[in-house]
């Protein structure tokens, strides 16, 4: 039965996605945050999913996009929670670099697995009391399988928009990272050094593979 439905559905989906893509200005009407995320996502797909791109080159391109579109420093601060008050300036510099490396190593490789999914902005919810705009989007696989829900929390949408959190199917990357980092520090008697050590080890391990 479903095999009869599939071609029909595929046509519907193509038309639907097609209209969404053609209505580029629609995103802009939804507020600047939506257009901002859409542009960034399209740029990522364009530049990071090129065939035969070396892993190192992909990482460099990803890092540039990350610095451009995300407030990595702020995310790093949130992720440390109150432990960030125990950072000396030298430690803070190293932490920022290690944290950025971890993000690059974790997420850049995912673009190597790209297989033609489309990236669609659904709508934008403004949450002024949290000075946040939340851009709700979907990543749709080509074969019509279930879409993946991705919400982008954007700060400063009107002036200099930067992403501060990404939720995939409701799971916040910042909160997950925060719980992990604080667990490492707490288990080592509240010493932030232990986290830097763990991050250095992780970076070496991710690089060596």
């Amino acid at each position, binding site marked *: *039965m*479903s095999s009869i*439905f*599939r071609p029909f*559905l595929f046509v519907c989906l193509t038309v639907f996605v097609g209209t969404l893509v053609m209505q580029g200005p629609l995103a802009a009407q939804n507020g600047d945050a939506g257009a901002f995320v859409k542009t960034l996502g399209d740029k990522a797909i364009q530049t990071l999913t090129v065939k035969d791109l070396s892993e190192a080159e992909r990482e460099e391109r990803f890092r540039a996009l990350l610095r451009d579109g995300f407030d990595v420093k*702020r*995310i790093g*601060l*949130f992720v*440390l*929670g*109150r*432990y*960030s*008050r*125990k950072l000396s300036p030298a430690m803070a510099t190293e932490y920022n670099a290690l944290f950025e490396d*971890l993000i690059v*190593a*974790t997420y850049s490789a995912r673009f190597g697995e790209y297989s033609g999914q489309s990236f669609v902005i659904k709508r934008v*919810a403004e*949450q002024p009391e*949290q*000075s*946040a705009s*939340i851009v*709700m989007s979907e990543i749709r696989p080509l074969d019509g399988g*279930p879409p993946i*829900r991705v*919400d982008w*929390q954007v*700060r400063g949408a009107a002036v200099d928009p930067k992403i*501060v*959190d990404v*939720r995939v*199917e*409701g*799971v*916040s990357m*910042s*909160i*997950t990272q*925060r*719980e*992990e*980092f*604080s*667990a*490492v*520090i*707490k*288990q080592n008697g*509240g010493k932030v050094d232990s986290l830097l050590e*763990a*991050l250095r080890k*992780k970076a070496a391990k*991710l690089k060596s593979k």
Partner: protein
Amino acid sequence: MISRTKKYLGDMKAGFAIALIGLLMLGGCAGVPEDPADREAYYEANDPIEPFNRAVFSFNRGLDAVFFKPIAAIYRDTVPDALRDGIQNFLNNLKSPVILANNLLQGDLQGAKVTVSRFATNTVAGFGGFGDPAGDLGAKYRGEDFGQTLAVWGLGEGPYLMLPIFGPSNPRDASGMVVASLIDPVTMWADNTDRNAIPIGRIIVRGLDERSRFIKTLDDLEKSSLDFYVTIRSLYRQLRADAIRNGASDDPIPTPSISLEEDESLLGPRAELVK
């Protein structure tokens, strides 16, 4: 002899329960850390019996490495996708009565309508539930369980709990699981007709199917995480919270404080408990 064995087993159960309660209380008494940063981490973790949970987690992972994961990998690599999807659809369809009960208990009439029409459509047009024509037409599958219903009724999740074999949970979701097994019509029918193999087989196939779909995701997660136990704990909580809100919502949740001024931006979701 039999009654003695029964009594012995009963004693063992009681003993186990007492030991578990003792452990929970001990854990609870372990004390809240003094340092505000440690205290914040402690509250956000909400895991007073962490040493016990970690032990169960290692046990589960050992079992997974030698047993569940290899079998799931074989299942994934040998059974054609279409058949695996069919099996998943069939199992989902079989859950309809329990989902419907939960839709109604949550006062979600719209959800109940979807569950009923999905069940009717898929059972008839989907050849006993192996196909998912309802989903293809836009009425997507959405699971509901008693843990979610209890949450909708206002019950808190309680501390984190790692169950042997079943994995991450909490007192609320674990009780929900017990209730579900008691009122599930398929299990009840099997019980009454002495076909105990059916519910057990169903649990095994369901577990196999789910594990086979998460092999790569879990491998990737483990590679990038600093403490896999904590990653799973965090993911479980957030995914449950999302399921309770029924996923895509008109009113998305922002990550608290992350967008605020520099000084406040590091205060987390449980900041009020730390002061």
